[in-house]
């Protein structure tokens, strides 16, 4: 029996599930559906491609396959119970999400100034560890999109150590629920700082190896340089943030610009794309910027560990949950807070009414969502292989695109 679909007046759009129709194509064109099950769409992204053989005429991303109603959930949950859902927005960088979210709620509550510095240092330490893990995935899977399998396994091996460290601290490997509003779930375990130091010592030569096998590989450069060039004004107009914006040549990092948390006390610099191998803002620059950011994160971790083992040393009176409010009820306000996620600017928009523990509205501005929206502009007239290269260089996490 043929199923009958019920359309209402409001949503009668005949272009779904496809925006394009076979009848409207010219004789050379063909519709190619890439995804939602495809090896290199990084999850459940579907790209509807009008192609002339290998040449891409137009790309229409279709998203929503991983929509998990975060915003609707958030409207029904107290602030502290939203944190596990926040983990699942960008599941590759949960610590960064939690950090951004906790900072936002703390600012609303007005307790941001009272957070102990040891807590803040631990937060930055775990967030930067997670940033390295996220960039590893970005670079590794990008290599796989280009056709190099080996770097992926290498970065997974190195990422495994980070996951173990974070598991040691929080009890889970991917979705931590570690950074709480007003503090932490628990202090870092004894010996964590030393393990971090050892890991950094182990990691440094491995990063060089990764650069040798992938970033500076001749074929990799040929495949990515001058591909998917994103000019700066386009990037800003499309609201691109994070490594993609920096690869286009703008030194814009919220850790420096907004100077939130303890980042002003740390010594690191913001790498930007230089167009070394091709034009400024191409796929190679984006990957290279991510690679440089790993080095910067490594330096941040070293500084955090140094502080955590010297003047902010562990002591028995330290209670990471001391400031955690029993009842989180911010005053009635609208508030937009943002922080630098590995993918870009992660923003939370809150509206609270001051009478409830739950937000009236909690909107997430996911960096991947915005970064993906530039794809149709980037991927016009490129080859099919370049389309894959461009999609990979956006570093999408579909959990964040669809939320």
């Amino acid at each position, binding site marked *: 029996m043929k199923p009958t679909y019920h359309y209402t007046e409001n949503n009668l759009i005949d272009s779904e599930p496809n925006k394009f129709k076979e009848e409207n194509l010219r004789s050379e064109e*063909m519709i*190619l559906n890439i995804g939602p099950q*495809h*090896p*290199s769409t990084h999850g459940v992204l579907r790209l509807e491609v009008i192609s002339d*053989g*290998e040449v891409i005429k137009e790309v229409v991303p279709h998203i929503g396959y991983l929509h998990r109603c975060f915003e609707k959930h958030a409207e029904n949950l107290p602030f502290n119970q939203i944190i596990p859902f926040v983990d699942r927005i960008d599941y590759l960088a949960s610590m960064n999400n939690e950090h951004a979210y906790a900072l936002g709620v703390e600012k609303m509550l007005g307790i941001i100034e009272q957070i102990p510095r040891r807590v803040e240092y631990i937060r930055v330490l775990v967030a930067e560890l997670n940033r390295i893990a996220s960039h590893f995935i970005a670079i590794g899977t990008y*290599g*796989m*999109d*280009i*056709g*190099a*399998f*080996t770097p992926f*396994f*290498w970065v997974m*091996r190195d990422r495994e150590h980070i996951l173990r460290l974070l598991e040691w601290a929080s009890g889970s490997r991917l979705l931590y629920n570690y950074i709480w509003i007003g503090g932490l779930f628990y202090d870092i375990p004894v010996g964590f700082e030393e393990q971090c130091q050892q890991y950094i010592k182990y990691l440094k030569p491995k990063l060089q190896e990764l650069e040798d*096998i*992938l970033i500076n*590989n001749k*074929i*990799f450069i*040929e*495949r990515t340089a001058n591909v998917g060039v994103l000019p700066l004004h386009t990037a800003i107009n499309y609201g691109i943030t994070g490594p993609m914006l920096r690869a286009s040549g703008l030194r814009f990092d919220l850790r420096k610009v907004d100077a939130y948390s303890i980042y002003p006390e740390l010594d690191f610099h913001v790498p930007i794309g230089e167009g070394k191998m091709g034009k400024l803002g191409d796929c190679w620059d984006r990957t290279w910027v991510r690679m440089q950011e790993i080095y910067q994160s490594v330096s941040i971790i070293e500084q955090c560990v140094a502080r955590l083992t010297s003047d902010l040393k562990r002591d028995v009176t330290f209670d990471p949950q001391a400031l955690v409010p029993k009842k989180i009820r911010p005053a009635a306000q609208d508030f937009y807070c943002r922080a630098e996620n590995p993918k870009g600017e992660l923003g939370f928009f809150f509206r609270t009414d001051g009478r409830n523990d739950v937000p009236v509205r909690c909107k997430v501005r996911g960096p991947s969502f915005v970064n993906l929206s530039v794809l149709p502009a980037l991927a016009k007239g490129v*080859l*099919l*292989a*370049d389309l*894959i290269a461009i999609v990979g260089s956006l570093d999408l996490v579909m959990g964040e695109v669809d939320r």
Partner: protein
Amino acid sequence: MTFFFYLPLLLLYALFAIYAERKISAFIQNRLGPMQTGPYGIAQTIADFIKLIQKEDIVPGVAISWLFKISPIATFAVVFAGFSLLPVHANWPGAEMASGVFVLLAIVSLDVIGLLLIGWSSNNKYSTLGAFRAAAQLLSYEIALGISVLVVCVWSGTLNLQEISYRQGQYHTEPLYFLGIPGWWNVQPLGGFLAWHVCTMPLLFFVWLIFFIASLAEANRAPFDLPEAESELVGGIQTEYSGFRWAVIMFAEYGMMLLVSLVGVILFFGSWYSPIPNIGGLEFASWTNGTPGTWTASVWGGFWLISKSLLMVSLQIWVRWTFPRLRINQLMSLCWKYLVPFALIFLLFTALWKIWLTL
């Protein structure tokens, strides 16, 4: 006769090549590879094969059914036919013919028809794109491959594969000069690797590089695995295949790997000759080559030929797990702008060198 030698060899080889591919890739990637099936996982390929032949033979509804069914077998038949022309050892020239190299290249070039049919008959957009890529790639690299083989034929003055083999060691009747400098150092009595083509003619090493790159493309191996480019075309030409027919395609691919490796060894690396030269009184080459006409030459010859080819196969595996994939236009420009012109230049210089040598 070669049929009964190469078919079991090929089956055995495919089992171990797939195992080697897994283990070598695992070694490169800091993994263990298969460990569960049998000691060190050696039975993994057999288990996989059993799984594959049990699977349902799915033919998509819109596929051209009969073509879809026969094209994998056609591809394999072409690859397998290539083996019949190869000499195995000094006593066994295979299907010996005066124009062996020519026939071999002709047979290898038929491979593209099989791949095109596989992609076309699937009636899938990814497969069709893969088939177009395969056709473009194989036809272009055929030329680079052909010219690099031609250089060897010019140097050795024959199209007979067995004669080319004979020329690279101590059974050759004329003197062989090291690095191709006439009258300098006759390595013919020494044998071993010194008498191989790559050593008696220095240019041939670079020609071999061209041959090797072109042969990677002919065998659809990474970095030239565009027809099946997993991250772009899902599975490329083999997207719609499963079970036994897919196994046959894989079998053809691994067979092609071995075939081009064997040809490379025969043309450049001393065919079935031993790599160890005679040093003074220690006649390693004579001992490890055996005596022609007796069973020793057969055993040693077969052993050296197969081992050298497997080394080449390992090299191909190593390359595959190191490099990213090229784009289609880079693939074309690599062939037409670099490999073919350089091969032609080497052809010219080899011809001139040959004249100098015979003056």
